[in-house]
């Protein structure tokens, strides 16, 4: 059977991710990897998924969304609550519980993706960016006031009122404490693979072409019978679901987590990964997310000047990747690959 070019590209991509995973896993099991870096493995997976999913909105669908951390935080808390509830109803297997929690996180983030997408996707350009930013903040502030507790298998919710029966799961602004840390690095790796399957297959399908058509030329896309709002919504909600799943994984890897962690900065951080890796370039997002998550850890030697160096590195990378001579050199070294990357050309 003759394979399609996009299929071959996907197989190569998955191969590289699998090899990277095997290398990391061997480094962990043989003890070569430093302890501090080992703790970074799950956040790296989480941020890779966040960057790839945001790239679906920013790069492929061409809408600047600044509230991606909001969907992540919904995933975090619904995942934590879901995990505790699943344990209470007798799902003791940790792997099953983790994956079910991730699905719960994804579903809830998806529901909010639809709810937020309906008003937001009526807007265009800067206005859309501003409103997504606002929604990200709204989500965080609402989560700050929510209290969840579990009494047996019964779930209690209250708004601004900490006195609810049972064991407290989420304690308003103090966040979730004593979370059972069931997230594992292999689960993060599976989530990355799942994200890549979803995003790359989506791009190379009928729906993906419609999303990119709506991005490149809205008027022409509508004249071809493509319902632009529907496909923008599709990209937005898919990204929200993936962010929610990543959030659930993140929440279940931390002992304590508060809503304050998912403020505007986190959304911008993920956007930096996307922009730095190249808008519309899935591989760029993966590499940028992995490197920039590790970088602050590697720069620990610089102590107080850590964030200064981090900023300088960002600026240098921007300058170098936009330098015409460097670009010419790079394109000579790396043969241009088709499929997902070339399709996502100039997006914004």
């Amino acid at each position: 059977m003759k394979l399609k070019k996009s299929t071959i590209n996907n197989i190569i991509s998955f191969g590289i991710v699998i090899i990277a995973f095997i290398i990391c896993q061997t480094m962990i099991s043989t003890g070569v990897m430093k302890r501090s870096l080992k703790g970074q493995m799950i956040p790296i997976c989480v941020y890779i998924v966040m960057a790839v999913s945001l790239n679906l909105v920013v790069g492929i669908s061409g809408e600047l969304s600044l509230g991606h951390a909001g969907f992540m935080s919904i995933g975090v808390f619904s995942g934590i609550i879901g995990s505790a509830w699943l344990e209470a109803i007798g799902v003791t297997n940790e792997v099953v519980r983790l994956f079910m929690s991730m699905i719960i996180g994804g579903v809830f983030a998806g529901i909010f993706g639809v709810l937020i997408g309906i008003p937001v996707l009526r807007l265009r350009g800067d206005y859309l960016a501003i409103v997504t930013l606002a929604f990200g903040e709204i989500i965080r502030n609402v989560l700050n006031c929510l209290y969840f507790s579990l009494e047996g298998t019964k779930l209690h919710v209250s708004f601004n009122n900490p006195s609810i029966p049972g064991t407290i799961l989420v304690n308003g602004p103090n966040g979730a404490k004593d979370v059972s840390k069931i997230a594992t690095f292999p689960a993060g790796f599976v989530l990355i693979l799942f994200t890549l399957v979803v995003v790359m297959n989506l791009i190379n399908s009928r729906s993906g072409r419609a999303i990119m058509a709506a991005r490149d030329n809205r008027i022409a896309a509508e004249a071809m019978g493509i319902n632009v709002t529907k496909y923008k919504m599709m990209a937005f909600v898919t990204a929200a679901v993936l962010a929610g799943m990543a959030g659930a994984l993140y929440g279940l890897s931390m002992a304590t987590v508060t809503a304050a962690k998912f403020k505007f900065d986190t959304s911008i951080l993920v956007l930096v990964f996307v922009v730095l890796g190249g808008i519309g370039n899935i591989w760029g997002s993966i590499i940028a997310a992995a490197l920039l998550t590790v970088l602050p850890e590697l720069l620990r030697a610089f102590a107080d000047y850590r964030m200064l160096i981090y900023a300088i590195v960002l600026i240098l990378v921007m300058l170098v990747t936009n330098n015409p001579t460097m670009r010419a050199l790079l394109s000579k070294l790396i043969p241009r690959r088709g499929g997902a990357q070339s399709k996502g050309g100039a997006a914004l």
Partner: protein
Amino acid sequence: MSETVKRRQNTKMVPAPSQGIIPERDLYVSPVLEARHLGIEFGGLKAVDDFNLVIGKTEIAGLIGPNGAGKTTVFNLLTKVYQPTMGSIMLNGHDLHGMNTVQANKLGIARTFQNIRLFDNMTVEDNVRIGLHNQISYGMFTGIFRLPGYWKGEKAQHEKALELLSIFDMQDLAKVQAGSLPYGAQRRLEIVRALATNPSLLLLDEPAAGMNPHETEELMNNIAKIRDQFQIAIMLIEHDMNLVMGVCEGICVLNYGRIIAKGTPDEIQSNPTVIEAYLGKKKEG
């Protein structure tokens, strides 16, 4: 000039029940398009006013007029890019009132653009596949998880796209990026993409702009060929009078947003009002 085009000129135009003229052969089938008293105002300025037109089921109609006469505005009204402030549009017996561009397209109206609007970063084939979006479809989950429907749909889209591209002998360019095509080929690709949406009325906005005389003649034959092959109506805006007079059966002349003349190419060529609109009035005395 080829046989097909010559034959077109011998078509007899007859009056339709509603103020229009259509080819004799289309008289007993309901017309594809009926616009009645169509008009749009932009803040008091009547860009198009009292536009009445009937297009027969397999007619090739022309819309001409001096620059700024409102020709493209008429196309934007018919495709519902603008919502008309007056009048009604009937397409195949359906009233387009309150519909948007997407719904109008689904009902069978497709167009090309004066300033080419291709998806430049995509391949020629993908451009046509976007035209096929509603013709050969499968759902989002089928696409993401590559279920059997995905492979079937992609194969059908691929075959149909190549078949449509072969109208203009472009099947060899299928893998080329659309933005890198020469100008004439981009115009042809836009026509193929519009045809892919399976329209019953195809609107061409200056299809011959930027083409050389040889390419224009080829286009003329292809327009006639498309009509014969797909049995659809075609309406075109064009400044190249050789093309308009050569291929159109009925012509409608627009000036300052109003129809000033309707008729066959011969009638239009000798119409004093039309000559005046294009060349100005003869000086008295």
